[in-house]
C-alpha cells in the first residue's frame, strides 16, 4: 500500500495535470498488474462499499488514542476529514505492515464487512498498529467508504495510454463499467483495459458518455443558428441503453448497471434491432401527459429498493433519446450529429424534439418557457459534431435558464471539508418572516425572541463563492460569532447573499415549510442592508411560478 499512498499524496498535493500524469506513469511502471488494477479502480472512481460504519471507526479511534469522544470530535472538526483526524490522533505505530495494495484490499479491507463487530475491531486496531499516519489515513478512507482523489477519469486514461502505448479512446471505451461496485478488479481485467478488442462479443459494454459545458456567454457567439441543433435539456437521469445479442443493459452516468430498475425501458428497448446503443434521459412521465412529472417523482421511485406495482403505476419511466452511438453493430460516434439523429428517428425511438426557432433571439424566447415544460433549458449541439469522450469544449453546450433567486441572510456557518477544512464555507440562510419596516426594526428583531418578525432558516449552501470571497466571509463569520455548537457557529447576521436554486416546493420537513433544490450562492449583496433581504412571501410567490422541484436530489443517479 506504500506505493499507492505515495501516489495519492503526490496527486493530492499537485495542481499540475502534467505532474499528475507523470506521477501516475511512474506508479504504473513500478507496480505489478494485480495492484495497478486496484489503483486504477480506485482512482477512476471505484468506491468499495463501506466496510466499517464511521461511528465504529470514531469509537475505535477514541479507544486507541485514549481520548474522550468530545475531544476527538473537536479534532475532527478542525481537520474537516475523519480519516485525517483518526490518522493524526493515533499513537505511533508499533510494528510495520508492508503489504501490496491488492492484498490490503482483498485480504484485509473487503472481508471486514462480513466480520462481527468484535473481529472487525481487532482487525482495524491491528491495521492501525502497523501503519504510518499517511497509510492509516488511506486505510480509513478505504474502509469508511469515503475515498476520493483529485484526478479525473480522463487523466487516468491518459496516463494509462501514455504508459502502455494503447489508444486513449479505446481505453476509455473498455474502462466503462470497470469501476462498478462489487466487481473487484483483477490483473486480467486490468490487462484487458490495455488490449485492443479482438472483435468478439462485447456484451453490454457501453460507450463513455459525452458531456457538455455550460455556455459561458450568449449563443450568438457560436455563429450561425443553422449550424446548431437545439433540444430541451430534460431533468431526469442520463442513461445509456445497450441492446445486443437479444439482451438489454441500462447504464447510468455513474457507470452503474441499473437495468433491473427500469423494466418498462427494458421492454421498449428489447424491440430494437440488435447492435443498437442509445444515449438519452430516463424520465418519470405519466401516460397522456404533455410533459414529464417533476424530478421528485422519479426520485421517489429511485429511492425504492423494491419496485411494487403501485410505484410502477405512480411513476412510470420512459426513455427520451438524445443520440445514437451504435446501430447495426457499428460504432456511429464519429458520424455527424444530424446524421445520428436521422438514424435515431428512422429506428422509431422516441427522441428529444428539436426546438426549431429560426434565429438566436427566437431561441432565447423559446427557452423562456423552460420552467413550464419542466426542463432545465436547452442543449446546443453542432450539426457536424461527433460524439466525443468526457467533457470537451466546443461542440456541445448546456444553455440552462437562469435559476430562481432570492436575497437571504447568513445566520449559521460551518467549516468545510478537504481543501476548505478550517474555513467557514458552509452556510445556512434565512429570510424574514415578514418585511421589516426599517433597519431599526430588523436590528431589534435580531435581539428579541418570540416576536412576529424573525429570520426563518430555509436553505444551506456551500458553493458559488470564489476563494477570495470565502476568505472574506470566513473573517466576517469569526468576527460576528455569537455562539459555537461544535463545528457550527451562530453569527449576528450582517451579510446578505443572492441565493440561486433550480426548484422550490412545499416541505413538511423544513421549518420554513419550503424546500429548494440545488441552492448556491450567486453573489454577496454588499449593496443590500439586512432589512431589505427577502421574505417568506417572496419564496411562496416563486413556488407558484416554477414547476415543483425537490430538494436534495438523489446523487448516485443524478444526471449531469
Amino acid at each position, binding site marked *: 500500500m506504500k506505493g499507492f499512498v505515495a501516489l495519492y499524496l503526490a496527486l*493530492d*498535493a*499537485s*495542481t499540475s495535470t502534467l505532474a499528475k500524469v507523470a506521477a501516475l506513469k511512474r506508479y504504473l511502471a513500478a507496480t505489478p498488474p494485480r495492484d495497478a488494477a486496484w489503483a486504477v479502480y480506485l482512482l477512476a472512481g471505484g468506491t468499495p462499499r463501506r466496510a466499517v460504519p464511521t461511528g465504529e471507526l470514531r469509537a475505535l479511534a477514541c479507544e486507541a*488514542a485514549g*481520548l*474522550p469522544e*468530545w*475531544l*476527538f470530535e*473537536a*479534532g475532527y472538526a*478542525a*481537520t*474537516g*476529514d475523519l480519516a*485525517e*483526524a483518526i490518522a*493524526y*490522533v493515533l499513537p505511533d505505530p508499533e510494528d510495520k505492515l508492508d503489504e501490496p495494495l491488492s492484498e490490503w484490499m482483498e485480504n484485509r479491507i473487503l472481508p471486514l464487512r462480513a466480520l462481527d463487530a468484535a473481529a472487525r475491531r481487532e482487525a482495524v486496531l491491528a491495521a492501525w498498529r502497523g501503519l504510518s499516519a499517511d497509510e492509516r489515513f488511506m486505510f480509513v478512507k478505504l474502509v469508511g467508504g469515503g475515498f476520493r482523489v483529485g484526478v479525473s477519469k480522463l487523466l487516468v486514461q491518459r496516463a494509462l495510454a501514455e504508459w502502455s502505448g494503447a489508444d486513449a479512446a479505446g481505453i476509455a471505451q473498455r474502462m466503462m463499467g470497470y469501476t462498478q461496485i462489487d466487481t473487484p478488479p483483477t490483473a486480467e481485467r486490468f490487462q484487458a483495459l490495455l488490449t485492443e478488442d479482438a472483435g468478439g462479443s462485447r456484451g453490454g459494454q457501453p460507450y463513455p458518455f459525452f458531456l457538455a459545458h455550460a455556455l459561458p456567454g450568449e449563443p450568438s457567439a457560436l455563429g450561425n443558428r443553422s449550424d446548431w441543433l437545439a433540444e430541451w435539456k430534460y431533468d431526469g437521469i442520463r442513461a445509456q441503453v445497450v441492446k445486443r445479442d437479444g439482451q438489454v443493459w441500462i447504464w447510468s452516468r455513474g457507470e452503474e448497471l441499473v437495468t433491473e430498475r427500469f423494466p418498462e425501458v427494458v421492454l421498449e428497448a428489447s424491440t430494437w434491432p440488435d447492435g443498437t446503443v442509445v444515449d438519452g434521459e430516463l424520465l418519470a412521465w405519466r401516460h397522456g401527459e404533455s410533459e414529464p412529472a417533476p424530478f421528485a417523482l422519479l426520485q421517489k421511485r429511485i429511492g425504492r429498493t423494491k419496485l411494487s406495482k403501485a410505484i410502477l403505476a405512480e411513476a412510470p419511466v420512459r426513455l427520451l433519446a438524445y443520440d445514437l452511438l451504435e446501430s447495426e453493430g457499428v460504432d456511429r460516434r464519429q458520424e455527424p450529429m444530424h446524421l445520428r439523429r436521422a438514424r435515431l428517428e428512422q429506428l422509431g425511438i422516441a427522441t428529444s424534439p428539436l426546438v426549431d426557432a429560426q434565429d438566436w433571439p427566437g431561441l432565447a424566447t423559446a427557452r423562456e418557457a423552460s420552467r413550464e415544460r419542466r426542463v432545465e433549458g436547452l442543449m446546443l449541439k453542432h450539426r457536424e459534431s461527433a460524439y466525443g469522450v468526457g467533457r470537451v469544449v466546443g461542440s456541445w453546450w448546456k444553455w440552462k435558464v437562469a435559476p430562481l433567486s432570492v436575497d437571504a441572510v447568513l445566520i449559521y456557518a460551518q467549516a*468545510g*471539508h*478537504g*481543501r*476548505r*477544512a*478550517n*474555513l467557514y464555507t458552509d452556510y445556512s440562510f434565512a429570510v424574514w418572516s415578514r418585511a421589516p419596516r426599517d433597519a431599526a426594526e430588523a436590528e431589534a428583531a435580531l435581539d428579541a425572541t418570540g416576536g412576529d418578525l424573525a429570520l426563518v432558516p430555509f436553505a444551506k449552501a456551500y458553493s458559488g463563492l470564489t*476563494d477570495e470571497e470565502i476568505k472574506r466571509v470566513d473573517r466576517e463569520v*469569526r468576527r460576528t460569532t455569537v455562539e*459555537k455548537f461544535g463545528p457550527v457557529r451562530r453569527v449576528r447576521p450582517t451579510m446578505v447573499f443572492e441565493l440561486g436554486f433550480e426548484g422550490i416546493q412545499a416541505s413538511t420537513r423544513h421549518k420554513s415549510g419550503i424546500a429548494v433544490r440545488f441552492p448556491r450562492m450567486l453573489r454577496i449583496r454588499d449593496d443590500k442592508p439586512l432589512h431589505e433581504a427577502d421574505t417568506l412571501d417572496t419564496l411562496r410567490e416563486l413556488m407558484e411560478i416554477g414547476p415543483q422541484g425537490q430538494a436534495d436530489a438523489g446523487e448516485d443517479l443524478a444526471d449531469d
Partner: protein
Amino acid sequence: MPDLVTRRPQGLYCEPGDFYIDPWLPVARAVITHAHADHCRPGHGTYLAQRDALGLMRARLGDDAPLEGLGYGEARRIGDVTLSLHPAGHVLGSAQLRIEHRGEVWVVAGDYFVSGAGDCNTTCAPFEPVRCDVFVTESTFGLPIYRWAPQTEVLAEMRAWWMDCAAQGKQALLMGYSLGKAQRLVAGLATADAPGPVLVHAAVARLNAAYREAGIALPHVETVTPETNFKALRGALVIAPPAVQDSRWAKAMGAHSDAFASGWMRLRGARRRRSVDRGFVFSDHADWPGLLSAIRATGAQRVIVTHGDEGALVRYLTELGLQAEAFATEYGDETHGVEAAE
C-alpha cells in the same frame, strides 16, 4: 488572595508589580515574553525582556526604544513581586515569566516549544519547566490532532525534497517565518554536508545577524540580492518568509519548487489552500503532547489558557481534575490555519 495576573483591555496585567505582559495597547511598563510582532508591540513606556531578545526587539522597535534586559534565572524585584525569566524554547530570548508574590508563584509561559526525543535545536535555549501554583499557557495547537514528529526527522524530509528538486534541475524555495523558524531551518539544513548552497531572503539575513550578535553560531549563508545569479547556482535552497510566495522575488529564482514549514501544514486542507508543492509539519510551538507534558511538569493546580484552541484544552484539563479557565487575548489569530503568525 486576588489573582496575581488579570486580563485588562490593554493586556495581561500584574497588579502588585504594576506591569503588563505582552500588552496589545500602549502601557507604561511592559514585560515581553518574546520578540514576535503580536507579543512585542510598539508604543510602551519601558520594555523588560530576556537579554538575548533585545537585538531582535530593537530591529522591530528602533534603536532608541527604552529596552532593558534580564538574564535567564536572574531575579528582579518589581513593586511587590519578584520576577524571573526562564527559557521557553520558542525563539531566541523567548521567556516564561515567573512571578512570585507572598509565597504564591505564577508562571506566564508566552509561546513555547517542548523538544521531543531526538530534537536538537541550537538556535535558542530549550524549554525548562518551572514549578508554580498557577500556569498561564498558550494553546496554538491545543488539539490532539497536532502531534509533531521529531524535528530531525522533518529536516531529513526537507533535505530529501531539496535533493529531489536539484535532481529535477529546480531550485528549492522553503518558506517559514523570518524570526525563529527561519533560523531553525538555517541551522538544520545549512550543515557541513549540505547537498547544495543555502541562501536566505534579506529579511531572514537581518534576523540571522541579530542571532549571531547574541552568540548563536548560525552557519554562514549567502543573502539573495538583485544581483544573485540563480542560473549559475545549481540545486540551491532558498529560505524566505511566506510573503514571497508567487512574488516577482520568487520568480527571479527561475524554475523552482516551493514548500512551507509550519505546524499548520499538519492539515491537508491548509496545505492545499496554501498551494505549495510541499508542506512540512515544522513548528516552534508545543504540540498537544508537549502542552500536556509542560502543564504536568509545572505541578500547577490551576491553569489559564490563552490564544489558540482554549476551549478544548480547558475542558480537557478540567476533566483531568485541574482548575482550568481561559483568558481571551489578542495574540496570533485563533485556529486560522496558515494565515496565523506562528
